[in-house]
């Protein structure tokens, strides 16, 4: 059964009475609770779409620095539960780096808060990080507070077609050892198109100009959009993850298969990728048993 509660208390009520829930849709719980631009923080209910949230924040010149595919259709709750991100991950980190507090309805119907609304806070254990990426199997995130960033003053994404993975590797090494500080560093080969390295720069306009200049000396030319990421991940949502230094050798093993890779992070999206398996299995199971002893949340 998928729940569609009209409010947080309705969700509490339903969960406390349910034996098994296949999923929760929170579209009715989608208010912006607070955005305090001077604090660079905002609190939002989990049913709001990421795109709507960003639109609110942009009014005050801020954003949540995360760029997963399809922000119009992605709720804040799913963003957190599935720990999603996009090409800017290399420069901006993941959503775990930006969430500072949340409210969660536990499988027994209790609502708990963890963290807070200040950017630095070590009072109590950090449950926020546990719930991020837990795929709604330990509790349902109903509200989250984020720290924010100023909107980027300037941004440029440049592409360099590569003849081979070897050439791409040499270029990546050059970038790695240079003064460049890319926020995007992607390598992709989609549906037989040419292998392409993408480097993105963001920040003060003077920096972006200077870095773009330095990148063009390495052969980066055309300004490109990053929409290849969303397009490709529609069919390939799974990834494998390796140490960044093992990226190229891993890609070599893929043969001709299409891929989009976060070269700076060592994350490779491709069609036949199998989801990463959890280590410390016994501990993992204990978490589930303790937070959801009756197995209400199927995830």
């Amino acid at each position, binding site marked *: 059964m998928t729940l569609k509660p009209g409010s947080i208390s309705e969700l509490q009520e339903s969960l406390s009475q349910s034996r098994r829930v296949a999923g929760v849709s929170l579209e009715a719980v989608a208010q912006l609770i607070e955005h*305090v631009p*001077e*604090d*660079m*923080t905002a609190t939002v209910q989990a049913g709001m779409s990421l795109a709507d949230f960003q639109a609110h924040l942009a009014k005050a010149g801020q954003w949540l620095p995360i760029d997963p595919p399809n922000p119009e259709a992605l709720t804040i709750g799913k963003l957190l539960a599935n720990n999603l991100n996009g090409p800017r991950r290399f420069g901006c*980190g993941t959503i*775990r780096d930006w969430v500072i507090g949340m409210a*969660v309805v*536990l499988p027994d119907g*209790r*609502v*708990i*808060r*963890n963290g*807070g*609304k*200040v*950017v*630095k806070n*070590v*009072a*109590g*254990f*950090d*449950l926020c*990080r*546990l719930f991020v*990426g*837990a795929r709604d199997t330990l509790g349902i995130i109903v509200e989250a507070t984020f720290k924010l*960033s*100023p*909107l980027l003053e300037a941004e440029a994404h440049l592409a360099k077609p590569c003849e081979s993975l070897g050439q791409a590797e040499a270029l990546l090494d050059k970038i*790695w050892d240079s003064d460049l*500080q890319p926020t995007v560093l992607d390598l992709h080969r989609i549906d037989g198109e040419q292998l392409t390295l993408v480097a993105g720069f963001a*920040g*003060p*306009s*003077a*920096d972006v*100009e*200077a*870095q773009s200049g330095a990148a063009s000396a390495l052969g980066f030319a055309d300004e490109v959009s990053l929409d290849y990421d969303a397009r490709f991940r529609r069919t390939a949502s799974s990834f494998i*993850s*390796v*140490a960044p*230094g093992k990226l190229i050798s891993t890609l070599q093993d893929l043969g001709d298969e299409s891929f989009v890779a976060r070269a700076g992070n*060592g*994350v490779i999206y491709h069609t036949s990728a199998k*989801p*990463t*398996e*959890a*280590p*410390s299995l016994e*501990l*993992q199971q*204990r*978490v589930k048993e*303790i*937070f959801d002893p009756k197995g209400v949340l199927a995830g």
Partner: protein
Amino acid sequence: MNSKADKKNLTRRLAEIVGEDAVLTDERELVVYECDAYTLQKNLPTAVVLPRSTQEVAAVVRLCAGLDLPIIPRGAGTSLSGGVLAVDGGVIIALTRMNRVLGIDPRNRRALVEAGCVNAWITRDAEEHGLFYAPDPSSQPACTIGGNIATNSGGPHTLKNGVTTNHVLGYEMVLPDGSIEWLGVEPDGGEEVGGYDLRGAGIGSEGMFGVITRALVRLTKAPSAFKTFLGVFDSVDQASQTVSDIIAAGIVPAALEMMDQLITQALEEAYHFGFPLDAGAVLIVELDGLAKGVEQQARLVDEICRRNNASEVRLAKDDAERAALWKCRKRAFGAIGRLSPNYVTQDGVVPRSRLPEIMRFIRSVSDKHRLRIPNVFHAGDGNIHPLILYDERDPDQVKRALQAGDDILSKCIELGGSVTGEHGIGAEKIDFMSRQFAEDDLEAMQQLRRVFDPDKRCNPHKMFPGAKRCAEFAPKKQVVA
């Protein structure tokens, strides 16, 4: 562990694991371990062991589990909230002999270190690759990575770079049953780890989940340009407004620190940096990144300082002056000894926009309790560090000092903040937990604790209301790093 025979037996069995030179049971030696830098509560542990390997740690932990003895992991003991206090005795497992940098991996920008490795050593070893370890608590020449992970340490440069949890990829932990687990990213592994984020959940768990023995940390590319300003203001209000205006202008400095007059005067007397003695407040603003962008932002910061009537905006002229400035800032607590025989360091957080309000409130608390309260703090994060000065020889002053701390932290909660931004709850702030969190919130934290330590034997009597206290609970001089 009551009888002499029991203790002798424990000493012998610990020595069988770690060797006689790595077991302390003599009271004269144990006294070093009776507290951390929070000295209001003290108690002697039953024993201290100084293991040299993860296997030794695991064997000690298993032995203690068999004897039902508490274990207390400890790094350098620089923590400020009594986090390593042996409240009810038990075996302190000190990681100070496991202090090696095991490897720097420049290609993957990672370092593998033992838990007792000193924070500053990582940057020392990574520097030649143009890399550094970002979190920089003021105690970084002494504090250990294991302790940093346990308390999710911050530092002046966390405004832009984030705190420990943003920079620790994974770590090895000996659980209270003696099993060894690696949580998070493995030394040669990818940064995406399947399953629940137990790594993240364990960071900031204040030594209550297990003994951290090794850590894999993220290294950051060193910025190529810095500009470090000293902004001099007549009043704390003007300086606070400047902080808000810098943030509102869309600038995220690497650090944004404030010191009030009492602090700058004490610092000047101690270190002769050249701080103005008549300034109500001084801001340190550090921008870092690439040369062009830093210049662009520097012009804006200079303008904002002047718009807020800064009487002087001084730019550090070279790396040496910049280093001297930070050395001064990080030794600020040390200079307080010149002002007062005793002091207690508070650590609270408010939303940044409430800084002027909390600073005014601290002044009123200072007046009300007739105690001087200098301030040196991470203004950009809203993380305040009022230092409440008192004289322990005067019992009434001691009482007023404790009450002043309570007033300030209560106000932090009221303003939507937190009672600790980086020092932790430990033994000190237990009573505040039920004021900042609801009962269900605390129960959920206890659920997480049960995952790691169902018997509550690892660093017990901390964090949660209802915990046991030390018999000796008397305010003493607090030395702070």
